[in-house]
């Protein structure tokens, strides 16, 4: 089982490092562009939510991403130590049929994660929020 992990602080500045980390791993695993795209998307949505909403103005929060390759699947495990928040339950489901006028701005991050993964799960582990996203290979 191949895996890689990265630790980052809760600042937007760290996103570039996370992007480079995912790129390097996708390269090494020879993943398709589509899978690489999905990993980037899910990592960004989780990270930005933790930075902006979870840790709010704290820049010294801890973020951890682990990528795991299995024969027929990939997993991205995201962890932070921000206050308990289950986005899969708490984030409102956007109305994706509303017209441009009616449509609310925002609230698409968690929705995109759900759409782009085969499975996404949340659990609280002590002081940690743990999000797991699985993708078909």
């Amino acid at each position, binding site marked *: 089982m191949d895996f890689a992990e990265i630790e980052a602080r809760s600042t937007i500045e760290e996103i570039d490092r996370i992007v480079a980390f995912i790129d390097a791993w996708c390269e090494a695993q020879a993943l398709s562009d589509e899978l690489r795209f999905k990993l980037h998307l899910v990592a960004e949505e989780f990270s*930005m939510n933790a930075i902006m909403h979870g840790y709010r103005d704290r820049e010294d929060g801890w973020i951890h991403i682990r990528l795991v390759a299995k024969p027929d699947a990939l997993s991205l495990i995201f962890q932070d130590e921000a206050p308990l928040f289950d986005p899969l339950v708490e984030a409102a489901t956007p109305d994706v049929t509303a017209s441009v006028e009616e449509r609310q701005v925002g609230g698409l991050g968690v929705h995109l994660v759900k759409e782009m993964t085969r499975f996404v799960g949340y659990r609280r582990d002590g002081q940690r929020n743990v999000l797991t996203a699985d993708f078909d290979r």
Partner: protein
Amino acid sequence: MTLTINEENRDTVLVVSVSGRLDGVTSKTLDTHIGARIAGGSDRIVLNLSGVDYISSFGLRLVLVAAKKLNGPGRRFVVCGLKDNVRQVFSVSGFLSILTLTDTVDEAASAASS
């Protein structure tokens, strides 16, 4: 990362062509840029995304904000050139049915000038 914003006036239409990643930071940058254009009087805008390989929810946000600002009589907002991954993000968010989309810049410019 590299974000490139290229602009070209085609009669009454401003074609804004973007290359790069539309993430949390660059989407805000582009949002400001397009917002300044709209405030400055550009009321028919084509957003050409044929150079965009990556878009997240922040990119969708800027697209929706522009579409809302340019919604109304005499105003046009047309998006063109979606790559496959970008198209999928638009699709699952319902954007394919609420926005005016075309394949090419030419089609977009003519849709925006009508």
